[in-house]
């Protein structure tokens, strides 16, 4: 029996569908102190005085902390491998307020009511400073957001806090200007994406308590338990050995929980008071002070000859990291690396970027991690290029797309294209979608127009040379296995997928694998579930550990049979003499492991990879535009994905559908708007509209799999790539329907209607071809 590439049920499915109490807030002790944060009403301010005496008198208040009560070593909340690329620019509480919502004080009390009352009574005297709210004007602005002397960038990412610069770099190959000047057709455009919220259904939350060894225990809805331990050890000044992190079930992550958004607040309360404490972010807080996508503006220049060979790509990205630098230096890289590398004929490319601080909410990691922004820009420019060349955008891509066996241009996760079925993805998508019949538009009987658009995408599978997957597997005395993981299942099913790989490697039943994760005291080290790493890199660790344990079981079994190992076979359930004269079962071997035994039947392995083999995909969108109101309705979305071998086709399909829906949200609905004084306005799910089931149309998914040779089952990632195509594909579809190119996400009816009103004549002309 093989389980890989089979749609088995998730290990935790029945607990989840029956509503068992398995999430952070369900598990928190009832007598936890309730922790809340007093938040700055100003985008940029200096706390001159903060008075807490009266608030402390509220019955039930256990502690109130201000900037005077916290360690003074700066740190980053970015859940990244040490030394982090993100600058050390945070204190738990700072005197300088850097955005509306920044933490001014921490209040802990026995009841929520007491805490709410105390929050109102704290008196803060702010000296209001001029904020930097326009990210175009942030670099070298007279207003410095991080003037402090102990600001530190531990990695050479081109950062300079005195210039409001979180990162800067220039990369490239060949003479872009020369090639562009020589091109028959050049498109030059600027694209803008907003600081979208992951909006996972479970907001940020953690609870903390001291254990019998005097260590701080943190139960948190996090994607990065091991990074939480290390970072909090530093932030609290107690050292990582004094911290234990436990991850229960997580109600969605999407990268949001790759940053320590909530952990530090209950943690410091427990350290100060010795009492258990919990912090549950409201949706309001999750919207205004969390870890959303980096707002980016990309200037793209792309040139081709008249036959449609793309010869040069030039990308400049300006990224807004907000008040703090979490994931700032790294997300921006993907905006170029994962977009430029989609094309194989490029003779020259250039990729330049600036990441700037502003007085807005700090950004973080969101599914796609910069690739989403970059792919929107480059794929939109390619769509426009196709139109200029009078070519079908599918044909233009077929001519230029990256191919297996070729070399990547401008990709940082490897030079050779080890596995790629992008051509088959395009062919299959075209067929499923009936592209040739629908491109570019159809006028419907009711006067509405249906337009179609296409885009390609790639992502990575783990961070090359950095990410570490970990797995520990042991044989129990009943012949079952326990698979211990450091990777964090956040609902997408890595506990299940990794168990499937373990079952196949150990030649045992899927139900014979007990899976456990994550507790930093007992789980093997793993960098965590992000960067599309788990199936690929933790999968490699699982197989390595299982292979190694298999050898030990076999050795022990042969010893029990008192013959050399070469004279035995192991089929996963028993070790038997080749001559058929005897056998021992897995259970017997397991029991043998528990007495008079010197060889552990437990193996722990790590895995890392020098390459990050990209998954690829094609997305095709059909929208219906009402040309009178500008409203855009999703009709159909076809996604064909090459994620290598889908380990669990059901979970891969649902991830794809989910990513497409999230991408549709980004493309059509999810807006981020700030008031003039820097208050974020889309601060609830009422103002920040994520798609409902009526907003996404039909999403159809298929797979065209390559086989990635560097993974034991040929698998690559799928978690992030699936959000990358909707923005450019939908923008192109809207253009083909309405003649309006919207280069700033989201494509609201207002933008479309204004566009139609403004370009009516020009548009009539455009309709001619």
């Amino acid at each position, binding site marked *: 029996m093989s389980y890989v590439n089979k*749609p088995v*049920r*998730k290990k*935790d*499915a*029945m*607990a*989840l*569908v*029956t*509503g*068992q*109490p*398995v*999430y952070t807030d*369900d598990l928190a002790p009832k007598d936890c102190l309730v922790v809340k944060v007093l938040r700055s009403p100003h985008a940029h301010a200096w706390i001159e005085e903060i008075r807490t005496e009266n608030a402390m008198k509220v019955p039930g208040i256990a502690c109130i902390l201000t900037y005077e009560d916290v360690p003074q070593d700066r740190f980053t909340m970015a859940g990244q491998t040490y030394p982090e690329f993100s600058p050390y620019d945070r204190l738990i509480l700072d005197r300088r307020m850097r955005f509306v919502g920044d933490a001014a004080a921490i209040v802990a009390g026995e009841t929520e009511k007491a805490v709410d009352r105390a929050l109102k009574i704290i008196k803060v005297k702010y000296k209001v400073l001029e904020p930097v709210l326009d990210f175009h004007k942030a670099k070298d602005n007279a207003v410095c957001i991080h003037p402090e002397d102990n600001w530190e960038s531990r990695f050479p990412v081109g950062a300079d806090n005195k210039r409001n610069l979180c990162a800067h770099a220039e990369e490239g190959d060949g003479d872009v200007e020369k090639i562009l000047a020589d091109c028959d057709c050049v498109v030059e455009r600027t694209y803008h994406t907003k600081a979208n919220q*992951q*909006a*996972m*259904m*479970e*907001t940020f939350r953690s609870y903390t308590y001291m254990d019998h060894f005097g260590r701080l225990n943190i139960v948190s809805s996090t994607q990065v338990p091991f990074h939480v331990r290390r970072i909090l050890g530093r932030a609290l000044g107690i050292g990582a050995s004094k911290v234990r992190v436990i991850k229960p*079930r*997580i*109600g*969605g992550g*999407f990268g949001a929980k790759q940053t320590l958004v909530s952990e530090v607040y209950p943690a410091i309360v427990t350290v100060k008071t010795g009492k258990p404490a919990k912090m549950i972010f*409201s*949706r*309001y807080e999750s919207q205004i002070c969390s870890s959303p996508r980096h707002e980016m503006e990309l200037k793209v220049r792309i040139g081709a000859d008249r036959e449609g060979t793309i010869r040069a790509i030039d990308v400049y990205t300006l990224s807004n990291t907000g008040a703090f630098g979490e994931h700032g230096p790294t997300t921006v890289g993907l905006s170029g690396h994962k977009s430029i590398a989609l094309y194989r004929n490029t003779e020259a490319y250039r990729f330049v970027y600036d990441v700037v601080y502003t007085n807005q909410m700090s950004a973080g990691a969101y599914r796609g991690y910069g690739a989403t922004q970059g792919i929107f820009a480059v794929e939109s420019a390619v769509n426009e290029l196709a139109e200029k060349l009078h070519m079908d955008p599918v044909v233009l891509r077929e001519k230029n797309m990256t191919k297996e066996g070729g070399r990547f241009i401008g990709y940082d996760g490897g030079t050779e294209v080890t596995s790629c079925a992008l051509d088959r993805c395009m062919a299959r998508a075209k067929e499923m979608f009936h592209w040739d019949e629908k491109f570019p538009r159809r006028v419907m009987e009711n006067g509405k127009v249906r337009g179609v658009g296409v885009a390609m995408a790639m992502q990575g599978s783990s961070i090359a040379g950095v990410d570490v997957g970990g797995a520990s597997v042991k044989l129990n005395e009943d012949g079952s296995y326990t698979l211990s993981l450091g990777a964090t299942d*956040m*609902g*997408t*099913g890595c506990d299940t997928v990794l168990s499937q790989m373990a079952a196949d490697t150990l030649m045992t039943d899927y139900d014979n694998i007990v899976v456990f994760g994550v507790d930093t005291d007992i789980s093997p080290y793993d960098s965590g579930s992000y960067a599309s790493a788990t199936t690929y890199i933790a999968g490699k660790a699982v197989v390595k550990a299982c292979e190694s344990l298999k050898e030990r079981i076999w050795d022990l079994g042969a010893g029990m049979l008192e013959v050399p190992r070469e004279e035995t076979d192991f089929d996963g359930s028993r070790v038997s003499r080749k001559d058929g004269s005897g056998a021992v079962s897995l259970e017997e071997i397991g029991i043998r492991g528990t007495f008079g035994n010197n060889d552990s039947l437990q193996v722990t392995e790590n895995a890392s990879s020098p390459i990050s083999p990209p998954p690829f995909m094609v997305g095709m969108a059909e929208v219906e535009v009402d040309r009178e109101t500008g409203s855009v309705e999703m009709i159909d979305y076809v996604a064909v994905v090459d994620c290598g071998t889908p380990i*669990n086709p*059901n*979970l891969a*399909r*649902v991830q*794809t*559908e*989910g*990513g*497409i*829906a*999230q991408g549709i949200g980004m493309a059509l609905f999810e807006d981020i708007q700030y008031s003039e004084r820097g208050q974020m306005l889309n601060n*609830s*799910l*009422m103002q920040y509209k*994520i798609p*409902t*089931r*009526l907003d*996404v149309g*039909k*999403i159809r998914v298929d797979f065209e799999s390559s086989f990635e040779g560097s993974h034991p089952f040929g698998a690559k990632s799928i978690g992030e790539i699936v959000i990358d195509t909707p923005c450019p594909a939908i923008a192109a579809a809207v253009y083909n329907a309405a003649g309006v190119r919207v280069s700033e996400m989201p494509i609201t009816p207002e933008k479309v209607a204004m566009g139609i009103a403004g370009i009516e004549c020009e548009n009539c002309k455009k309709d001619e071809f």
Partner: protein
Amino acid sequence: MEIKFILNGKKMQVDAAPDLLLLDLLREKGCYSVKRGCETANCGLCTVLMDKKPVLSCSMLAVRADGHEIVTLEGMQREAEEFGSFLADQGAEQCGFCNPGFIMNVFAMLEEMKEPTEEEIGEYLAGNLCRCSGFMGQTRSILAFLKYKKEQREGGSDR
């Protein structure tokens, strides 16, 4: 204020503060399946049944439950397992956080309609957000469940 209501078949008598929300009361009483996804009645995660009709427990004062019958997923475990297995067979439960509210509303829908069409399903459940699944798998699971139920009614299925 003293209120009396029936929670999952059991008589309850509680002293509820005037500003206590039904959601918080239910969690206090151990119904941890009831989740809060927003505070603005947008997500549907806190859906429970009051007298067999779906209500958003985040937007209802606990005292309004006085004299009524409240059912949460804790009170429908057998049904949850039955329908939930269809969700699980699609892999559409994902993180699971929205599942209880979604499933309660599915039960409310089936109370009103025996064989809803795909369009009716979409409209009835439009208030139940899910950020993981993209909704397609949820719809597939409902359709498969309806088919199973129909076959069961007609005496065909041995699932």
